[in-house]
């Protein structure tokens, strides 16, 4: 019940803003008029009475602003104004806008690309069961060990591995100098 009322009030101050503002102005001017009337009754001239009323009321604009803050929709209104202002600036200098958008796009794009690579390579386990049992096959003399971090392009491709696997047991003559080996 209460939250529904609160929501209704928030929506009202958002979408019926001019009406809410007008109501607030009426409310405050009523108060100032009452103060003025009181001052007149106390014997002031109507001009002096009005001045005294305004003075004792304090800054109307500040009070209105604080009332707006209390409505709790101020941040949305401010956000709307900021967006509007940004769009206007963009329209005034489209080249600047283009450069800004492009540099953001490139920056975000590059970051995303690098991050997705890093996260796949370093942060997540490889997307296979038992990734610790993966091996690379190659010529060990020329490739060295993978765990040394020295990959030198002499690893065998997967089709080649399949061929080696299905090939009949190699005879000594067909063996390459060092023979295919596993390196982990």
């Amino acid at each position, binding site marked *: *019940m*209460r939250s529904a*009322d*609160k929501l209704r*009030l*928030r929506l009202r101050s958002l979408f019926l803003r001019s009406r809410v503002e007008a*109501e*607030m102005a*009426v*409310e*405050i001017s*009523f*108060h100032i*008029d*009452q*103060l003025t009337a009181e001052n007149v009754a106390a014997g002031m001239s109507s001009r002096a009475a009005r001045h005294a009323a305004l003075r*004792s*009321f*304090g*800054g109307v604009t*500040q*009070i209105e602003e*604080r*009332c707006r*803050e*209390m*409505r*709790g929709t101020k941040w949305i209104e401010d956000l709307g104004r900021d967006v509007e202002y940004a769009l206007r600036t963009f329209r005034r200098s489209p080249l600047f806008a283009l450069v800004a958008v492009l540099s953001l796009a490139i920056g975000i794009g590059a970051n995303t690309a690098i991050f997705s690579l890093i996260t796949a390579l370093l942060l997540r386990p490889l997307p296979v069961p038992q990734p610790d049992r993966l091996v690379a096959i190659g010529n060990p003399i020329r490739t060295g060990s993978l765990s040394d971090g020295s990959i030198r392009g002499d690893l065998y491709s997967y089709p080649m591995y399949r061929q080696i696997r299905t090939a009949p047991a190699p005879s000594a003559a067909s063996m390459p100098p060092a023979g295919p080996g596993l390196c982990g």
Partner: protein
Amino acid sequence: MGKPSDLVQGTLDLLILKTISLEPMHGWAIAKRIQQISDDVLRVQQGSLYPALHRLEQQAWITAAWGESETGRKAKLYSLTREGREQLDKELANWDRLSTAINLVARMA
């Protein structure tokens, strides 16, 4: 106790809720009533009154309707909601507790 800062912190809500619990009132009348009832000791400044009214309204503790003032002008009249009445009871209980505690300390023999 001239300035709003001199009002005990947090009591403005209580004063407003209590004042309009009797009958719907506009801001001007609320300030006047508080001043009269307190024998001119409590003066609610407009600078705190209207923001407080708007805040209480947003909390759905008070609700506003347009009516006529005594002089026949259009005025925004505030009245308590059911939740506001509950809040008033809570604030009253809190105030009793606080003032009793302060009295205990202040009048310590």
